[in-house]
């Protein structure tokens, strides 16, 4: 019996090792990559329909996914200690670039977000999506947790400086996401509940004050979120049309490439920020639920990986990256279904365009590096 057991165990180990050995050699996590790949493929199928069967769109998206995959593979192999040591530099460079954008940035779509490096246009705010949580985790790494009051002040400055710079571009969506990524680090570090409550109160006051500094279109978005019917052909149009798309999809959907809202251009930004509504229209509630399940799986796996990491920097950073991913999903889906105001947040791995896919996969690369290098880390 014992032999039997050993034999079967070793046989099982052998069969596993084929794929597992490659994965562990690459320092990546199989289930997580599988989840991400499934979402990406699903996204490509939807995008083909949403873009009006545009092959160039698909090709460009595949290229970006591949670029992101490369970034993920490379970052997964980087030693977290190295990553931690370079974090302050990354952060400083990021802030510097944001200032550069504000001064010489390329103006696109009415907002100043891009920095032209000659051969490539680069969005420093994308870099900050990673640099801010890394910086927060770096700061808290050596300090006892939960963070002291002084630490909180310092962390607030570390977060608010880039958030402010991005917000004035203006790119409220990305600014919010950067802020969320930083705040999530602090929350995971054990921020006291009473402090959180106090901060929420402060945020409310800040929103009230911030109203005065908002651009007209930003205010309009908030107002039309409260009542889309006030401006059905203007700012409310997006929300109304996306709800019609989702609602008319029903349980089973109208079928792939058969969504009239999407195919006849009623749905604005159908291949970018509002692609969720296309899924709702063409694949119905079943299709949307499938996507949400995939997102939940990826998030859950990422949180699991974060819990397995062994030092503070890794834990906080991995936790933040995992939760930020879900925040993206929730904000986008909430906006498209009319639960949240319209903010320019893409649906991760599905929305077309931008370099956010690369950033996102790079983040997952870092997360996997933090997990897979854990035995090498001295704690």
């Amino acid at each position, binding site marked *: 019996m014992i032999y039997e057991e050993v034999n079967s165990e070793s046989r099982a180990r052998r069969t596993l090792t084929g794929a597992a050995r490659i994965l562990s050699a690459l320092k990546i996590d199989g289930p997580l990559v599988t989840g991400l790949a499934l979402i990406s493929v699903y996204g490509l199928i939807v995008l083909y329909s949403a873009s009006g069967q545009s092959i160039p769109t698909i090709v460009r998206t595949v290229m970006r996914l591949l670029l992101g995959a490369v970034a993920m593979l490379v970052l997964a192999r980087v030693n977290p200690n190295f990553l931690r040591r370079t974090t302050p530099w990354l952060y400083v460079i990021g802030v510097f670039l944001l200032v550069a954008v504000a001064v010489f940035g390329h103006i696109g779509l009415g907002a100043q977000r891009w920095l032209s490096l000659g051969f490539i246009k680069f969005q420093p705010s994308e870099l900050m999506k990673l640099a801010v949580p890394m910086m927060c985790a770096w700061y808290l790494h*050596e*300090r*006892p*947790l*939960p963070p*002291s009051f002084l630490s909180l002040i310092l962390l607030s400055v570390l977060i608010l400086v880039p958030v402010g710079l991005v917000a004035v571009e203006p790119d409220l969506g990305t600014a919010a996401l950067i802020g969320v990524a930083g705040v999530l680090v602090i*929350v*995971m*570090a*054990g921020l006291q509940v009473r402090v959180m409550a106090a901060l929420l109160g402060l945020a409310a006051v800040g929103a009230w004050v911030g109203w005065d500094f908002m651009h007209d279109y930003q205010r309009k978005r908030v107002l039309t979120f409260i009542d889309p019917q006030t401006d059905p052909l203007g700012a409310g149009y997006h929300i109304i049309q996306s*709800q*019609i*798309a*989702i*609602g*008319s*999809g*029903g*349980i089973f959907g*109208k*079928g792939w*490439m*058969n*969504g*009239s*809202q999407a*195919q*006849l*251009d*009623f749905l604005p930004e159908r291949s970018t920020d509002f692609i969720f509504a296309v899924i*709702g229209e063409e694949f*119905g*509630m079943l299709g*949307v*639920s499938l996507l*949400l399940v995939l997102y*939940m799986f990826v*998030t*859950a796996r990422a*949180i699991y990986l*974060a*819990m397995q990491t062994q030092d*503070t920097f890794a*834990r*906080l950073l991995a*936790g933040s990256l995992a*939760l930020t991913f*879900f925040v993206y999903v*929730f904000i986008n*889906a*909430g906006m498209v*279904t*009319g*639960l949240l105001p319209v903010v320019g947040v893409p649906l991760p791995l599905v929305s077309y365009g931008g370099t956010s896919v690369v950033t996102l996969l790079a983040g997952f690369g870092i997360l996997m590096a933090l997990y897979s290098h854990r035995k090498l880390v001295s*704690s």
Partner: protein
Amino acid sequence: MPAGRIKDHWGEQRLFDQRSLIAGVLIVLLTFVLLGRLYLLQVVRHDYYAELSQGNRVRTEPIPASRGLILDRNGSVMVNNEPAYQLELTREQVPDLNDTLKRLTALNLIDPEDLDGIKHMILSRRSFDTVPLRLRLTDEEIGRFAVHRFEFPGVDLATRQTRHYPFGELGVHALGYVGAISEQDLDHIDRAAYAGTALIGKLGVEASYEKPLHGQNGYREILVNAQGRSVERQGAYAPELRAVAPTAGEDVVLSIDLPTQKVAEEVFGDHRGAVVAIDPTNGDVLALVSKPGFDPSIFARGVTRSEYAALSQNIDKPLFNRALRGTYPSGSTIKPVISLAGLANHMLDPHKDEFCAGVYYLPGSRLAFREGKFGRHGNLDLPHAIARSCDVYFYRLAATIGIDKIAAFMAPFGYGSLTGIDIGGEKPGVLPSPEWKRRVYKQAWYPGETVNVGIGQGYLLVTPLQLAHVASVIAGRGKSYRPRLVTALRDVNGELHKLPPIENPSIQGVTDEDWNIVIEGMIGATSWPGGTAYAFVHGTPYTMAGKTGTAEVVTVGRNQSLTAKKTDERLKDHAWFIAFAPAEAPRIAVAVLAENAGFGATTSSPIARKVIDAYLLGPDGKVKPSLLPGGSPAESPAAKPAEPAQPGVPLPEQKQAESPPTSAQAHKQS
């Protein structure tokens, strides 16, 4: 270790795990919130959103019905439809309306003066309605727009059927015209029924018979994208698209006899005035002319402000329908009616000679009423007094009868009231009476005014249509019909629905003998050597009864005051002539008015004669058998073979018309 300076790795790990679990729970909760929202949208409110999405992509597009034709009594096409390019604009597809209109003006496609009106019209329609800017473009304009088409999103060329008037001015004051639907029109039409219709009847038969002519527009549902453009794509999201075919408008058959109308217009020449010819046996208006006229096509293709100004400010008033709206003193044409009034009231012995010394004094007055043109007539009985138009005879007769009886007797002839013709705009004229004068002028009636009424001067005002009707009442010996322009409607299946003639109450109290003696006097006017019109119209192959009239130009129209200054030419008298023939069994009654043409007989009676010739005489120069008593009534339009004729054939100048131009078949019968 609270607030310790030393890191507690196990504690931190626990704290993190705890927070991760809370986060996980929160994530599950939020996902359920999302799923709940999706359930609400996709299951609970699915029907509502499904309907909205259906409404989003299906739009109904009207299919205009083709407008009914207008035919003359013989079935010749007088008005039809013709394809034309029109320039149209859809507001919701135009990025900047003001700029677009400005640039179209710069291309000379819009008259700058029309800009405000066009803009107003566009803004009064729904934003997705397509509004015609110009109803008919010339080839050159089409080319000019085509080159710049891409600069004008929301502006396009479209083929539409437009109204075509093959004979131009001919009969325009009877036919009327169509024009672009104006804001005023929108107030009294069913907007839904007119969606897709560009033209609406504005005047004449086109306006009065708008309803049958218009027909019923159809519609079709089209699949559109968010920009409202039609998309062809079929697939699972192509819903069932419904379509309802339009029902073409009914054809309107006129009482107008096209050859007679043509003759009437041509012989009228450059005079201003009107001709109305009526069939006394049924009230059919055989010809209706008001000169000068205008080309109705300019309204159908969209009249520009300057064109309209040229028409409306013309001193000759081409837009003014003199036949229905021009009110003039009747002049001596009243004399037969005054005679009948005397006979009916037994105040006149028709065979007794009365002496005309060329002047008449009211008993006990020194105010002289003088003979008009012919000095003194000597002894005259009634027929000769009518034939020679002796004013003194009728001064005396009118004074004898008295104004109250005259007014009461004349009213049933249609003086002072509308004839009830089936097109709009008619004026009632004035039948004066003491009661009327009290009401209007708040003054008493003077006996001298009665004397003036005896020769058709003074307050009495009539329209040419009214006098044609009076002529037809006399021709019918008291029996008359309401004048009408439309005798039948022909529906889409080609079935003819005849409209029965409407008979007026007969004139009471006049014996056959009375009628005969008055008609004898009217025959005398045209065929006795002393008759006022003898020199101009004698020798017809039928018996013609007529009466000349000369209206002094103190009042050209009711709205012009007595003191109005006029040019010399316009101070000349208006020439009247009323007539009917054949006198024994009349088939046509005519009234001719020529403004400022001097003595009535000279200008007007030859015109009347040619009109009567054109209608009554066949190619052999004899009265057409169908118009003789016992002849089959010429009343089957379209049944007669219509021979093609060239418009503008020179008309026979001889006394006997050899071959009246036959009904012209219009080229395009769409």
